[in-house]
């Protein structure tokens, strides 16, 4: 069995991906990504339209979008809507976890 040390990219490294790179890594088309940006499910971290840059957090969102679309066999608008709700739940759970941390046991 081979063993090797992997190079690591971290979600805190900031905006490091162009739209085309994000599309390649998430296995979505650029048009699908633009649709996600249009409907507010995905937000570029930096730049202006045409020169947007995305962070690894956006990659996580885009990969979730692809999974939801494929696994539930959804059309793009349905997948975007589901993604918005999934992301909203994720943020609320994060907020809940942070608030619970501040409560004495």
């Amino acid at each position: 069995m081979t063993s090797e040390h992997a190079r690591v990219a971290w979600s805190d490294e900031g905006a490091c991906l162009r739209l085309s790179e994000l599309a390649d890594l998430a296995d979505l088309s650029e048009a699908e990504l633009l649709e996600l940006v249009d409907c507010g499910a995905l937000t570029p971290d930096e730049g202006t339209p045409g020169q947007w840059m995305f962070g690894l957090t956006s990659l996580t969102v885009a990969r979730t979008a692809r999974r939801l679309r494929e696994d539930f066999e959804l059309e793009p608008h349905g997948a975007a809507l589901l993604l918005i709700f999934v992301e909203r739940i994720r943020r609320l759970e994060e907020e809940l976890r942070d608030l619970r941390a501040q409560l004495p046991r």
Partner: protein
Amino acid sequence: MKFKDYYAILGVERGATADAIKDAYRKLARKYHPDVSKEANAEARFKEMAEAYATLKDPAKRAAYDQLGRHGSGEDFRPPPDWSTQFGDGSGAFDGMDFADLFAGLAGHPRGGGRQGSARAMRGQDYEIAVPITIEESFGGTEVSLDLTTTEFDDHGAPRRVPRNVKARIPKGATDGQVLRLPGQGGKGFHGGRDGDVYLNVSLRPHRLYRASGHDLFLDLPVTPWEAALGASAAIPTPAGAVNLKVPAGTRGGQQLRLAGRGLPTPQGGAGDLYAIAQIVLPPELTERERSLLRDLAAASAFNPRRHLE
């Protein structure tokens, strides 16, 4: 290889219609999809049912699967030699293959010529792995050792499962929900397609003392009523070692006493804070002397904390 009863996994009869299979998969996907499910073991269950559905929804793959006959899930199994001639690449070489690999390349190729046979570039598979770490590991950074089984292809496009060990450095300050990408460490690409990636989803294990909120840490600090009233100095454990905290006179129960920069390191080179939450605790049993002193205090004090309720 181990046989998998795809019909049983989806809970349908062998003769189920395509619509019934789709319906069963959708119901199970709603329950077990890792992005929407809270069920224990949802990810493993979903992977299993997605694999079953990927084969049974495709008429060519389903026909090839049905040709393997009836076997129990988990039963040791080897496809009959004529199966390979009929559905595979004819080589009959199944060593190192996973059960799902038998059907991976059959779409649209009901009779041979399948199994990744086209010259189209195929990207390697991505993998997602949950990596729970301790708060101490987050504080100092840590290395994880991952045993992966990734898919590679031979010159004919036949898939092989290859065990690999990958070590990855988790940077200092990694917290709940953070994602690390290991570029190119996933399944091998084929026909010029790029290699897949591995994604590590970091989570913090529950700690007996600390609770994390981003890079801030929270800790319950029990104090006696007289320490809260008069002030005190308390030794506080932090991930970097114990420090003395001044509990100011007049500390209220639930008050957060902040130790700046004593939380988890941040990527910008700083650190979160550690908050000690004061909890006023009475002795489990009062001695006669304590009781007597408290009676004196009660008699001497005019303080009424419930005045606003009157």
